[in-house]
């Protein structure tokens, strides 16, 4: 187990290196440059800016410079917002994304597990169909529709919560729910399958026969085994939540990193693209790694095999 963990951790920097190189290449292949605009800049200004941002150097030199920036995590200033450095943008916006993402993933896990369990315990009965129907809606309803619906109901009609913003604690609720919806629906479906399988296992049956209470059976025997498919889904889910927060950030005026990531790409803001890709890349690698290790740990078979 430890060996596997160490091997995977050692691989992480190599993955990041490949990611940085690939991103460097892709953004330079993309047509249009950072200083193209509706209004043509004077050539002297473009020249000065190219020099300032190292774009007047040959590509290999630019590449080495980018690698150096990645290692030192200093990508210089943004090309679009030239009075802000990429590091500053990440420092200001990443915590907001993490705050929102963490709450969303917690909601998704809690709601998803409870819904999945309810469905499994009422298999092929009304409770099951009802829950699964809601799940299908949850998966297929896009955030740009669900978000405004929540705004309308809780912001406009009931006036319980603010419509947008990220300055007071109650402003995080609606965006977190919006962001969590599709993930909780997917988790519910995975959990339902997991629970159904485990409920049929012999050891659960015998526990039932021994007269253990249902709650005890669920917590002690069923839950650890049934959440395994959910745990393997968590890696991609966290990545999806973090990178997929763009629409939610726009609807609810949240100063998160998703916006910077996408706008960086649209504006051909090379330093910002590198910085945000690097952060997201590290994040995804870490969450995949954690989910993978957790899954191995939860699986007695693979744990036993390693030991």
């Amino acid at each position: 187990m430890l060996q596997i963990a160490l091997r995977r951790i050692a691989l992480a920097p190599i993955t990041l290196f490949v990611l940085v190189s690939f991103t460097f290449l892709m953004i330079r292949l993309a047509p249009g440059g950072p200083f193209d605009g509706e209004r043509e800049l004077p050539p002297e200004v473009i020249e000065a800016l190219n020099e300032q941002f190292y774009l007047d150097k040959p590509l290999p030199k630019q590449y080495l410079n980018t690698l150096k920036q990645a290692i030192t995590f200093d990508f210089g200033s943004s090309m679009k917002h030239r009075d802000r450095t990429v590091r500053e943008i990440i420092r200001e916006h990443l915590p907001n994304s993490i705050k929102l993402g963490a709450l969303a993933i917690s909601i998704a896990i809690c709601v998803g597990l409870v819904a999945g369990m309810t469905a499994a315990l009422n298999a092929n009965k009304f409770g099951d169909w009802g829950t699964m129907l809601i799940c299908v809606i949850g998966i297929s309803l896009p955030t740009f529709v669900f978000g405004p619906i929540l705004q309308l109901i809780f912001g406009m009609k009931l006036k319980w919560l603010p419509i947008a913003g990220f300055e007071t604690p109650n402003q995080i609720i609606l965006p977190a729910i919006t962001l969590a919806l599709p993930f909780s629906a997917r988790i519910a479906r995975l959990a339902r399958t997991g629970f159904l399988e485990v409920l049929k296992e012999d050891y659960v049956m015998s526990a039932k026969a021994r007269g253990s209470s249902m709650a005890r059976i669920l917590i002690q025997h069923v839950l650890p085994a049934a959440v395994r498919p959910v745990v393997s889904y968590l890696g991609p889910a966290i990545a999806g939540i973090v990178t997929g927060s763009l629409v939610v950030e726009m609807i609810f005026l949240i100063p998160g990193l998703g916006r910077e990531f996408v706008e960086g790409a649209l504006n051909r803001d090379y330093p910002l693209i590198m910085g945000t890709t690097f952060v997201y890349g590290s994040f995804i690698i870490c969450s995949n790694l954690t989910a993978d290790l957790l899954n191995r740990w939860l699986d007695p078979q693979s744990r036993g095999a390693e030991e």
Partner: protein
Amino acid sequence: MIHKALLSICYLTACVSTALAERPQWEQDLLPEDDDWKKTEQVFRFNNGTEPESLDIHLATDSASIRLLLSLYEGLTVLDPLSLSPQPGLAASWEVSDDQKTWTFKLRAGLKWSDGSTITAKDFTYAWQRALTPATGCSYANMLFFIENAEAFFKGDLPFDKVGVKAINDQELQIKLKGPTPYLLDILSFPTFFPLNRKVDRSDVAWSKKNHISNGPFILKDWKVRARMTLIPNPHYRDREIVKLKEIHVLPLDNMNTAYQMFLKGELDWLPTIPQARFEEVQRHPDYYVAPYFGTYFIRFNVEQPPFDDVKVRQALAYGTNKKQITGEILRGGQFPVGNFCPKIPAIGYEAPAGLPYDLNKAKQLIAASKYGPGKVPMPNVSYLYNTSEAHKIVAEALTQQWKEKFGISMIAQNMEWKVFLKEMKNLNFQVCRSSWIGDYGDPSTFYDIFLSYSGNNRTGWANKEYDKLAEKASQESNTQKRLNYFKRMEVILTQEDCPILPIYRYVSQGMITEDVFGLEMNFRNLVYLKYIWLEKE
């Protein structure tokens, strides 16, 4: 309450006034009649539409930044928001030489920066030198080229002391121009011409956020990027009494739907833009307003590519495009169809010739007479380029349909991401494409200059010697009427004779404002001076 633009033609009279009692008439018209407003909490909240690119006066190019800079700073002149005629700002008065090439501005006495230090003429020369230094990366640097030797300094050919701007002493600034520049007083009110405090260390890129010393009616209190910006009155502003707002909250929402919900809930007082998808609903709301805007939506022809290499085809399309259908039936957003490129500029009395009328017969005759007429070269297929956006798409579809029906031109509309679109346009890698232009200052040259043969903004492959010569003549002409006639002739060449472009419609600014807001005057250049605003609940 809808504040309609009142566009009166009144030309400049340099009146000097500092004390409230001597306030000039144009400014008195912008003041509340009584003190009732004091009963209302003076906190104004509006949506700025996006995060401003920068609050560095030399880096800002977008309207979100410029809107704020106009209230954080003040230049030598300001514009009367109603008539848009230039009025004294930091300058108390000015003198001009007979050849109109040397201007001497005298600053008001006791002007201070927001940190309490004195504003001197040197703050202007410092700022303009910075603007003209390529390493600053000022997108508008060429706007200063009407100053003597400014271009030579910019290109590195002359030192700055040869440039025609000089601080004679702390109070007097002298500007020498290449030629008479009738729009000088207007353009001096634009952010690129504002002064900068020399004490601020601008080697730290974040200076405009952390250490923002300004000289306008408001100062930056707090800037939470992509969340909220807070402005408060500048205690050292020269006319502190006129500032009635206690606090301004600026939100950078680009999701117009959310902004609209917040407005309806009473969390915002002003929306300068509306959600187009809900236009019908917004239009019925009593707080909705629409005002003309200083911009034109047009299409560019690539005159090097068939079939647009034949001027008759371009003219035919100018005659044969039903713009009324596009604005009235398709866009329905208050825009109005136009045949000319440059909008009216009432402050100087300019009205461009109307352009070619809609005349289908004439259009068909022209196509028949062109080299792509019946029995001649077959009409090639055409591709229409536009940057991805729903509004551009529906215009593209309408044009495709019209041209197919009327002239049998088969056109494919092709959308591209913004930066790719710009690259294709710049490299003349298109046949016909959508375009737009918003004027920067109150003179026709802000529109016509982009189609000079040597302009980087031309992007049509079109060049006309007479057109270039007229621009040159206009830049040297001191007689206003003669000058405006040159521009009228340029307009005729551009939109009636050579037709490298086809104007479609004039932009409008549409927004919503609550009835508690006063002093926010909508003018056609969309220039808002927040210092005149006050709130008053009935």
